[in-house]
């Protein structure tokens, strides 16, 4: 790679700061004056933040119940065994009874959690057609190849919505009943099922195909529902703003989880008498048990939780901040000691000279 930049007898090089490598520059050095305060300040700040996070996380109350229905774990095991090996599983309901000794401050959120469910599997994650979900008519009829084997139905009709994610839509449903005093009648607690999806998902990413003659059903004509579904996509909800591709449950489900154990929001409880939270008393959740998870060793949980400024219960962050902060302080002291001893030595050296 021989290469010659200038001809013989060339001009004198330019005398600029750039060519002579004399550009003005800031030359930071990790001196004690910077490093030690950095460590102590960072340590204190982290401990402070950690304490805040820890207490706010501790203040959050969570109630959870595993209703997978493994044998001997409550009345859902009946549904689980009944549904085993049958497709579609029969309609089956079970219930979770619990009581609150005191008010669970609101707003209270109802989540379902699945574990050992690999929404983050690459083949699972790509098995969708965002063009179809964004309401493009052409994509509705011609789902992307990534959707295979849920691209076309057995009869050759395009599946809408196509893909493994849509096909595996979580279809258990919950109702919450409250009994203020023993012996009283259970009243249903209203569950707010709107706005459980991201605004951008609901308004931008997911759109129904253009209506045909004002009918969503006609718009979807010539398509087949995913094989696991009992009803077509346009009948997911009677509410026209919550059906088709913009059904909130569907949108929530389609935002795939990062980890094999994940929780998704089912509903908020913030209406009527329950805006302050769930008052003390007895409750039960009526669960419509449809979704099989036992085949692959998965678990289904139902969770009530309230949240703080930084989201739901999350002890990890607070503890991590506390640990890191303490380590910073500790390291700071070690460095301080080293620095002082080194300084002494240095002075001695100077004296010797």
């Amino acid at each position: 790679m021989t290469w010659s930049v200038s001809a013989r007898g060339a001009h004198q090089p330019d005398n600029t700061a750039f060519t002579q490598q004399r550009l003005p520059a800031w030359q930071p050095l990790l001196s004690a004056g910077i490093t030690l305060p950095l460590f102590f300040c960072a340590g204190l700040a982290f401990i402070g933040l950690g304490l805040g996070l820890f207490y706010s996380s501790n203040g959050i109350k969570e109630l959870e119940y595993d209703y997978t229905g493994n044998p001997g774990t409550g009345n859902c095991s009946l549904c689980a065994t009944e549904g085993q090996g049958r497709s579609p599983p029969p309609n089956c309901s079970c219930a979770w009874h619990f009581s609150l000794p005191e008010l669970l401050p609101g707003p209270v959120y109802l989540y379902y959690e699945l574990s050992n469910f690999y929404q983050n599997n690459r083949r699972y994650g790509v098995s969708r057609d965002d063009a179809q979900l964004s309401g493009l008519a052409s994509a509705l009829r011609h789902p992307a190849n990534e959707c295979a084997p849920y691209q076309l139905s057995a009869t050759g009709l395009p599946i809408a919505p196509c893909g493994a994610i849509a096909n595996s839509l979580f279809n258990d449903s919950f109702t919450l009943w409250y009994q203020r005093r023993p012996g009283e009648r259970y009243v249903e607690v209203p569950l707010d099922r709107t706005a459980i999806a991201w605004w951008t998902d609901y308004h931008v990413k997911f759109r129904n195909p253009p209506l045909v003659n004002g009918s969503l059903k006609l718009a979807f004509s010539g398509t087949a529902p995913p094989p696991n579904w009992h009803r077509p996509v346009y009948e997911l909800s009677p509410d026209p703003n919550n059906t088709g591709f913009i059904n909130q449950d569907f949108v929530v489900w389609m935002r795939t989880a990062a980890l094999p154990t994940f929780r998704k929001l089912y509903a908020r409880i913030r209406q009527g008498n329950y805006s302050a939270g769930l008052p003390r008393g007895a409750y039960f959740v009526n669960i419509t048990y449809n979704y099989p998870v036992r085949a692959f060793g998965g678990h289904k949980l139902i969770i009530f939780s309230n949240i703080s400024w930084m989201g739901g219960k999350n002890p990890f962050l607070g503890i991590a901040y506390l640990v890191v902060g303490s380590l910073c302080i500790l390291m700071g002291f070690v460095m301080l000691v080293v620095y002082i001893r080194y300084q002494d030595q240095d002075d001695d050296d100077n004296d010797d000279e």
Partner: protein
Amino acid sequence: MKVRQAIPITSELGDISKLAKFDGEVICEPPNNKLDKFSGTLYWKENKFPLSNQNMLLRGCVLRNTEWCFGLVIFAGPDTKLMQNSGRTKFKRTSIDRLMNTLVLWIFGFLVCMGVILAIGNAIWEHEVGTRFQVYLPWDEAVDSAFFSGFLSFWSYIIILNTVVPISLYVSVEVIRLGHSYFINWDKKMFCMKKRTPAEARTTTLNEELGQVEYIFSDKTGTLTQNIMVFNKCSINGHSYGDVFDVLGHKAELGERPAPVDFSFNPLADKKFLFWDPSLLEAVKMGDPHTHEFFRLLSLCHTVMSEEKSEGELYYKAQSPDEGALVTAARNFGFVFRSRTPKTITVHELGTAITYQLLAILDFNNIRKRMSVIVRNPEGKIRLYCKGADTILLDRLHPSTQELLSSTTDHLNEYAGDGLRTLVLAYKDLDEEYYEEWARRRLQASLAQDSREDRLACIYEEVESDMMLLGATAIEDKLQQGVPETIALLTLANIKIWVLTGDKQETAVNIGYSCKMLTDDMTEVFIVTGHTVLEVREELRKAREKMMDSSHTVGNGFTYQGKLSSSKLTSVLEAVAGEYALVINGHSLAHALEADMELEFLETACACKAVICCRVTPLQKAQVVELVKKYKKAVTLAIGDGANDVSMIKTAHIGVGISGQEGIQAVLASDYSFSQFKFLQRLLLVHGRWSYLRMCKFLCYFFYKNFAFTMVHFWFGFFCGFSAQTVYDQYFITLYNIVYTSLPVLAMGVFDQDVPEQRSMEYPKLYEPGQLNLLFNKREFFICIAQGIYTSVLMFFIPYGVFAEATRDDGTQLADYQSFAVTVATSLVIVVSVQIGLDTGYWTAINHFFIWGSLAVYFAILFAMHSNGLFDMFPNQFRFVGNAQNTLAQPTVWLTIVLTTAVCIMPVVAFRFLRLSLKPDLSDTVRYTQLVRKKQKAQHRCMRRVGRTGSRRSGYAFSHQEGFGELIMSGKNMRLSSLALSSFSTRSSSSWIESLRRKKSDSANSPSGGAEKPFKG
């Protein structure tokens, strides 16, 4: 300079028409690389004429003393001796390049290992979980078993983890080197004003190796010296002239000299001659007889030719620059050598022309180390004038000169101490009868058939005895500017300098002293001159034994004979106490370089502080370099200016050509070129050092950032069923290496400086990390990799810990895949940016711009990619719509990013601070002291400026060849009239050429420089 002549028979081809009719035939040896030998025969007009090296002009020669010549081309192109000597052109690569290739291979192996681990993981997962999860995620049609799925997963992982193999590394490295090369070209401090030549990096691939040089192989003439001789001092009759005194009477240093002596009284004076001591001229004007005799000798006893183009315009054509300097000095002091014929010499002595009869020239040769003339002055007195090496001449003086001898010896020591080349001058009056008798015997001897030279030598010896001492001269072989300082500085930087020269031993040693390579502080200078294998081996063995004995490290049981385990020998010899130097002759070197002795030679040489190889051929130069390259695992640099240095320049790791001197072959073969030796210190200590530093920092960071980036996928594999799911968005993967992280590290690689340039000159020890290869080696590489993996672990597991349970502040799901991807990507970009900020030691505006710019560009692109507009156009390509604003609005996400950054960076800061406090590098100390503006500690500035005491005996050196006396006396080389020429028979002239040729081939020819062709025709 060398004499080259056409064979006499061709002299009749003077004009072009005759030349065109020339129809001779040359039969000669096949092409070879021996510069000093040629044998062939010219068949012409049914006669045979022998051709020897004396009749050859080699390719690359420059004609002196004649404007043109006719010639016959014997070999051309690759068959020329020069090209035969040049050796193969090798593709040069730096050690970092080779290391890099190894490391990339290792990384590739690592990649395959990761692929295998994850593939096995995938097979197990599909077997245990995947088969049962088929309810929701059926296998692809083609996949029929977990094993096959694992196999596919292997290839998927090879693809997604391939970013760990830094493909863009090679491009970036080249860009950085290109930048460094431009900085070398642009450097004003390496621009030679006089010749208007800038330094030039002729290759862009070797820059960082400039920071690792351990051995420098230097040519002498034209590289260390200017090949200009200057009459500097003299001692006449016990009085020394030539010291420069300033107004106050102190010895003046350079730069504060008074005006030079005015030679205007002498119309024939050479204007370029400068002398500073007026007392010498006064002595001449006062008519001091000793001084007159001194300069008379200088004007008579030489083999210089004069040419007078017009009246008073004298040109001397000297065969060696030393002689030219002496005769010019005599000329300026009023003893002007005007012209010569074979029998006379005409000298203008202080204005009056005097013609001396030249009776005999007792020519110079290597053994005699002196030359004499015998002249008859106009009064008829016969006198012998002699000049020669002090060691030889001082033994041949008349006992009566004892007193003068001691004072002259003092002066000689003083001159030698200054690194000057000295000659002693003496004369002797001869009786008429004695001379007659002597001349007769000389004639007899010269006609003898056998051992003619020995007989002649005896006869010369006889007459050159009991001489009267006149004085001594001291000639300065002018060094290039700044050579001793440069060598001293490079020595302090622990660079070993070997001088490889075609010159004679005396000259080379002399230059060794004057450029402070050899000093009187040295314990001993070993001189190896053996002619046979055994002699050389013995000499080397003795040298080693001496070094051993003085260091008292080895018992008697240790033998050096035969093949020893070289490592053992090295360890012992490297620790030798005291300073030694080795001088080895070309013919000894030929033996020393043989396969069974080369190790011994190398060990001996490497234990010495300085090594000088003299009378070496170009190929030997290359062999020496090759030897060091082969066994020392050190970076070598060869510097030279002439065609004879080409092979050495090509062989060494780095070849440097001195430009603007003779020829451009050296420059064309070189990797770097500049016009003065002193620029070498800047090239190595500033540019080389910085290049190495920058390249090492760059490589460390580059491997770090790729590992930190890629290994996250590996950890994620364990949580996504080993399905080859990437952690990041595809666009982030594409852009990470080329947009988000490339420019800051490039800016660091191009602009970073740890200490300012003047500091690296002040503290040459700063160069050592490069030689020891401390800044980037396998250990450093593993540290970088470990840091990268550590970062990737935290980069994955901290968000994992947070996201496992967290929900957003509006209660909706946080732990979705896309939010996770954005969080990890953002913290990665921030962490690597902070890391490059920590690594950057020199924040220019460009660094600021690139670092902050990269962060800004990351966020700009992130938001653009996640915007509604792009999604509306390409819904399947931009699936992350709305993600940036949703995710980055979460305090939890930012808390995660801050935590990740702190955990990744704080240990690095702590580690660096502790290292700075506990075990600071010299560069850290320099920076620190600079920061607090303390006075530099004296201990680092141990620049030795030793004023040498003149204990060395002989400063004698004379770049002279024998044969010229005969040449002059035969009158053959003079521009005589055709009449005068015809008076010499063809036969006699061919015989002298014959004898001249024989003598020349006896003494190995030094192949430097150009050719002289005093004989025209």
